């Protein structure tokens, strides 16, 4: 067992533990903190897969923006749900357990016969930094210029729409 595998197993355990706690934690604020832990674990996994740029973007966008946005959402809807006791889970939770068990079995069975699955990935340090290729691909009309521009228009539309939906027209009584 190499050092990479040990690091991977530790990070994977932390990530999955955080994910499990999101599904089961009783207090909303703790749930957000577990989400941050899970996202951080995924960022470390990105770094292990030589995706250094996306490791940083994961920390910036997911932890820095999305998790904080969700934290604000939790604080703004604070009084609504005391997640405790019976109200924590849906009453048909065993159906969910069966469904996810079947789904997981289907995924595992479907990747099992794939022959190439056991060849090792390229180790760290023998991979050049593809950040310039990434930037060029995003502004190359033959590559990903159109999706890039469309996603920027999407973000603008979403910003306008979010303000329009969330604005309080009655003058903040609640």
């Amino acid at each position, binding site marked *: 067992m190499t050092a990479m595998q040990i690091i991977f197993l530790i990070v994977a355990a932390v990530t999955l533990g955080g994910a499990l706690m999101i*599904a089961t934690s009783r207090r909303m604020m703790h749930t957000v903190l577990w989400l941050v832990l899970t996202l951080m674990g995924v960022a470390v996994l990105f770094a292990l897969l030589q995706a250094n740029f996306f490791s940083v973007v994961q920390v910036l966008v997911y932890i820095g923006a999305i998790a904080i946005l969700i934290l604000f959402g939790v604080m703004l809807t604070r009084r609504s*749900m005391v997640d405790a006791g019976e109200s924590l889970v849906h009453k048909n939770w065993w159906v969910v357990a069966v*469904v996810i068990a079947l*789904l997981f079995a289907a995924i595992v069975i479907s990747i099992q016969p794939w022959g190439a699955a056991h060849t090792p990935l390229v180790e760290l340090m023998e991979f050049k930094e*593809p950040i310039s290729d*990434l930037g060029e691909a995003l502004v190359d009309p033959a590559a990903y210029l159109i999706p890039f521009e469309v996603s920027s228009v999407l973000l603008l539309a979403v910003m306008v729409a979010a303000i329009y939906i*969330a604005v309080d027209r009655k003058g903040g009584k609640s």
Partner: protein
Amino acid sequence: MPITYYLILSAILFVLGIAGMLIRRNAIVVFMSMEMMFNAANLLFVAYASYYQILTGQLFVFFVMTVAAAEVAIGLALIVAIYRNRKQIDVDDMSSLKG
């Protein structure tokens, strides 16, 4: 290290996301579970990008992150609006459109 490790981890993360999404009743936890599922998909994209030594997978991660950020912004705006009207965000009680 074989890519199977990442495939299994991504599958477990995705399944846990589905579990949280179906089990929990608070709409914000449903959103967090959705983020987890996006992350599982991103992990798979990056793993395959590393496996094939090709950049396209990482570019898709970029677009998935954009759409995820848009989805969270709209979703939280909707949750805040619903909370303002109904004073709760229990997904089981959001059944006004039910016949």
